[in-house]
């Protein structure tokens, strides 16, 4: 199935306005693995006939990694430019598949003049299912599979979203198995706070290895995430243990798109 996606500029030109803006994020736009998550989400949006748009070439980094790295100047340059753009398009509601974009847009843009309703894609998908717009095919894709959910810090602790992704896993007819450190106690994947873009400081172990051990301990077949950076870190962790055959790292959007036969 080919995907249908339109830009804000395109819609404006033809006098239309979308119900929701899909903020793709830098990872979702440029990272090969994360692009698959982007496409999975667009398939779901298309299937449910959601009237959405993306910013395309006009989108720019939210400034999250700059802010976490302590560079408030770069952060605010990005934020103020993005807010001008978003307010120009009169954007009211935003969905994103990246918890870092989610946190920044939702919590840190209002003080700079950008107030929007911002939701994480797991919350949107949950809503689509609950309102009957999306039904999962009874194809048994995940029947008998064990899935564990790795809580992204910027979704969980940072914004108290713990249940939406878990409810979706339960809907897959799979067994949700929890790691010993989960929800409020969830261990970071190691990518946050701009660590994604630098080598870790000197230590005796990489954080993603520690976290992948937690996941492997559950003997789950799938490690589900809701963050492109967590996805990268956990995928690297699984490779480190040479478990690629037994353990897949997948985003919730991909799991749902599979289960809905999209």
């Amino acid at each position, binding site marked *: 199935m080919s995907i249908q996606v339109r830009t804000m500029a395109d819609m404006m030109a033809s006098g239309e306005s979308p119900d929701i803006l899909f903020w793709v994020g830098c990872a979702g736009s440029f990272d090969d693995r994360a692009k698959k998550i982007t496409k999975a989400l667009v398939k779901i949006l298309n299937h449910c006939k959601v009237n959405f748009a993306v910013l395309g070439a006009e989108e720019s980094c939210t400034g999250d990694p700059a802010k976490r790295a302590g560079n408030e100047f770069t952060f605010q340059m990005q934020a103020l430019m993005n807010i001008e753009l978003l307010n120009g398009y009169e954007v009211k509601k935003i969905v994103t598949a990246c918890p870092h974009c989610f946190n920044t847009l939702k919590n840190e843009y209002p003080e700079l003049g950008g107030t929007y309703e911002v939701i994480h894609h797991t919350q949107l998908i949950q809503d689509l299912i609950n309102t009957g717009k999306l039904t999962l095919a009874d194809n048994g894709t995940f029947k008998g599979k064990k899935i564990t959910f790795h809580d992204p810090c910027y979704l969980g602790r940072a914004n108290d979203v713990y249940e939406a992704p878990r409810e979706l896993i339960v809907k897959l007819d799979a067994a949700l198995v929890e790691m010993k450190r989960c929800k409020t106690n969830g*261990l970071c994947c190691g990518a946050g706070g701009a660590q994604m873009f630098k080598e870790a400081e000197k230590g005796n172990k990489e954080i993603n290895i520690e976290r992948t051990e937690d996941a492997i301990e559950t003997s789950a077949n799938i490690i589900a995430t809701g963050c492109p950076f967590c996805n990268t870190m956990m995928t690297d962790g699984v490779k480190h243990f040479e478990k690629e055959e037994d353990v897949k790292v997948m985003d919730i959007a991909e799991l749902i798109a599979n289960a809905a036969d999209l």
Partner: protein
Amino acid sequence: MQQLIFGVLTLSSFGFFAFNLRKIAQNIHMGLPLDRTDRKADRWRTMLLVALGQKKMFTRPIPALLHLTIYASFVITQIELIEILVDGISGSHRFFQDSLGGFYTFMISFIEVLSVLAFIGTVAFLARRNMLKLPRLNMKELAGWPTQDANLILVFELILISFIFTMNGADEVLQGYAGNSNGFAISSWLGPILFEGKSAHTLHVLEQIGWWGHIIMVYTFMNYLPYSKHLHIFMAFPNTYFSKLEPKGQFTNMASVTAEVKLMLDPNADPYAAPATDAAPSRFGAKDVTDLTWKNLMDAYSCTECGRCTSACPANTTGKLLSPRKIMMDTRDRMVELGDYKRKNGSDAEDGKSLLGNYITEEELWACTSCNACVQECPVNIDPLSIIIDLRRFLVMEESKVPTELTGMLTNIENNGAPWQFAPTERMNWANEE
């Protein structure tokens, strides 16, 4: 004579305590202003749940229960302290016993039972720290004074409780000789075991040793608090009341930066205009405790060095130098050092040292993943992450000390609007790829 000694002792104890509390208040006021007066109902609820109700302690049930025995016993014993003050000043013996009757027996019995539980709890805490060697209680930042402080607090508690039972036990046997037993739950059987057969005079002396020993320990402990991590028993309350109520992921907005950025983005701005004199702060981010907010400094006084933050920190558990507990201990040590220096040499005096550099290193700061595990774990809502980020801000914005790879990331964001080197025009490529 005894009443006079008691009066002088009480006044000087409270006087010295007040003197030290004033220093603490002064030190906290070295911090920058921050408004935490909004959402009063939420603040009261947070304080009642987290400080009074110890909600966050119970994520680890065993230490929570042990802690609860000591906490409950401490709070309830304060009622008995009222009687001790009345007896001490008036020279009476168990002032409330006759008027309260059976209720008095119940209250003292209740306190006795709690005291026994607290004694057991304290012994267990000593064992966890010194025999079981719990990792988080034996880390390198605790070497020296912090470990002594921790053990001293526990030993103080044991002595305090021992005096209570010396007093009540001797009194029990003494009253028993006169045919009217006090009938308190523990001392009515512990007293005879310890002191049966002793002369009335000896028992009276023992009772007095217990009474005086108890009150002297209370005053000693009270005046030890300002120098100790044990100050958390008071600071937990204001500290939870003034908690950050925004989502944990929301970092503070730097308004001083907004003014400058808006100027940069405004094509009509006059580049040669004189900078507004009132807006810009002395520096961006924090180099020393005076660049942190008063709440950061209150956090430091509220820390009892339990190390739950550090044991949950992904950087620390994988062997990195960062320990959120050390960040808080360093902040307090530096604040006390600078506060004392300023009181001696005037409020504008500088001692040439700073929190960043003399206490906290860059390597510690760059190990943080900003995951908020430390903030989540803290039983009294301390926020080490906010200090870490403010120190990073100083490093980056004032000193341009950024790890090389991050310089690349930041340049990319500035040049092409993404942390990696991709052109904005490539942003939609995913839509056409298979």
